[in-house]
């Protein structure tokens, strides 16, 4: 198991290196760090001097190594001219909002898709299953911004029970000004509800369908028939024997999708004026802050890789077959 974890982490490091190389190459090609630093009003000679000083004329891989070294040891991902702060700081300021949005959404998806998916597999003909399946078709085909606007209209404008934009009241989680959380105040939680629901409509139907079809497949296997032949109760056959085998493939997909979701918060953040990384990204695009965009890509990729690695390791703990393969 230990070897498996180490190997999985090494894989993650390699993936990050490849991503950072691509991103660095893009920045090298299109970016202009001198302008980011001093603006347009310098003579070409001065530019040349500054570029030399910044090491911009060094060999490519030399620069790349310095980029990686600075990123890893100093957390230095360049500077944003838009905010006039280090990129990483800008991103860290915006990350908690997005992370809490994704966590809330993941929670909604898990809590709803597991029981519904399992139920739809066990009782495919019941009215609740039929309703769930047709509703999930609707959910898949409805664009996020439409869902969001509909939710805002109903809950914020019509019934006036939930706020429609912003994060509401936040408190400092660690007392060091880095993580402002909305999870600890009633107002903050209220603000979280609509954005999370709207973001979850994208993937909730997908997971209900995935869990349903995986479960149905498992129910047809010989080992489930054998579980019946041993005289086990339906509860035990379904919730112990079938459920765990259903969960295994679902966990992997879940990891990937949660990772992807970090990049999909854009629209939701825009509609709900949610001050997260997606919102920041749109601003950076608007003002052509390439340096910040690049840093954002690196961070989102890192989040994606971390989530995937954690989920894979988790999967290794649950699936005995993987554990054995890992120790070999």
């Amino acid at each position, binding site marked *: 198991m230990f070897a498996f974890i180490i190997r999985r982490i090494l894989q993650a490091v390699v993936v990050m290196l490849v991503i950072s190389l691509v991103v660095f190459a893009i920045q090298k090609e299109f970016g202009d760090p001198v302008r980011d630093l001093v603006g347009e009003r310098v003579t070409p000679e001065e530019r040349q001097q500054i570029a030399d000083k910044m090491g911009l004329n060094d060999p490519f891989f030399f620069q790349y190594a310095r980029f990686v070294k600075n990123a890893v040891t100093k957390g230095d991902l360049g500077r944003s001219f838009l905010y006039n702060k280090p990129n990483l700081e800008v991103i860290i300021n915006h990350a908690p909002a997005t992370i809490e949005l994704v966590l809330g959404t993941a929670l909604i998806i898990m809590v709803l898709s597991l029981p519904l998916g399992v139920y739809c597999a066990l009782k495919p003909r019941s009215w609740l299953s039929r309703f769930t399946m047709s509703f999930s078709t609707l959910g898949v085909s409805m664009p996020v911004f439409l869902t969001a606007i509909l939710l805002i209209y109903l809950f914020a404008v019509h019934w006036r029970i939930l706020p429609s934009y912003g994060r509401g009241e936040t408190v400092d989680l660690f007392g060091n000004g880095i993580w402002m959380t909305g999870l600890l105040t009633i107002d903050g939680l209220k603000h979280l509800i609509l954005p999370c629901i709207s973001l979850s409509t994208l993937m909730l139907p997908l997971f209900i369908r995935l869990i349903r079809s995986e479960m149905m497949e498992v129910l047809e*296997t*010989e*080992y489930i*028939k*054998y*579980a*019946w*032949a*041993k*005289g*086990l*109760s*339906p509860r*035990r056959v379904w919730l*112990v*024997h079938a459920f*765990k*085998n259903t969960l*295994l493939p679902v966990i992997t997909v879940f990891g990937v999708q949660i990772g992807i979701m970090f990049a999909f918060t854009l629209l939701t953040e825009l509609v709900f004026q949610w001050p997260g990384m997606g919102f920041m990204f749109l601003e950076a695009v608007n003002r052509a802050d390439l340096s910040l965009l690049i840093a954002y890509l690196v961070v989102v990729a890192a989040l994606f890789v971390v989530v995937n690695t954690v989920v894979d390791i988790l999967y290794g703990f*649950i*699936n*005995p*077959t993987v554990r*054995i393969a890992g120790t070999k």
Partner: protein
Amino acid sequence: MSHLLEVRDLEVKFALRSGDITAIDGASFTLDPGERMGLVGESGAGKSVTGFAIINLISKPGFISRGSIHFEGNEISAYSPARMRRIRGNRISMIFQDPMMTLNPVYTIGFQMIETLQAHRNISKAQARAIALDKLQKVYIPSPEKRLSQYPHELSGGMRQRIIIAISLLADPAIIIADEPTTALDVTIQAEIMDLLQELCENEKMGLILITHDLGVVSQVTEKIAVMYAGKIIEYGPTETVVHHPVHPYTIGLIGSIPGTIEPGKDLKQIPGMMPTLTNIPPGCAFNPRCELAAEICTQKTPVLEEKQNGIMAACHMK
């Protein structure tokens, strides 16, 4: 005199979109305590469905449409699901064909053994574990302690089938139904598993319904035989007699022209033609297109299973 198990006039249908098809058509047989019966026939004849029908576990569109299954003094075919569960894995155990697919891949052997016992007895985990160890020893599993914490994929096919046999023994059942228990195994291991099954049934006085292709094994292990063809039992009698003096032309074809040459490992002989599928069974005797003795009556009237000679029952107009 009542039997341990008496299946009478069993009919099983599958509800397909095109209408119901009859997979088992009026099968009757009995099993006494400790008796071993072979159920033979070509693939698709209805052997597995018959086995599963006894514990009321026929795959989905299938259902028992007629007949009675009497076991230990009760009519169990009409049991509620909850009562039926107390028979499955407890009074009647089943061994499946492919040991590679039978055990749940994500739980340990110990887990899968202990849960079986706890489903049927009110005992602690430790007590269940002790019984599981005892049964693993009975099936000659080396280092049984270690097996309990292993996962199925860590064991070979032969080892897994031994474990499945041990699971079937857990609750000391009255009958074991073994559905081609060696078909999926290496030839070298097949004989070992068969010997083990026979030994256990003899020692523990358990009834056995052995579903198989292997006539040699049937003649070695069982005391009586039921031969199935297209959903019907067409010959039924003591193994010794059926193997050496078969009555039904189909059985004669299976065994070959020289009786007494049957050895273990020898498969049923090929008879020209194919067994009909359930949707196009010919009128009269289902075997008539392949039968050398077929006469006019064979295409008009379905023969019934009746006593012929030497205590053999057969369904044939010409015998």
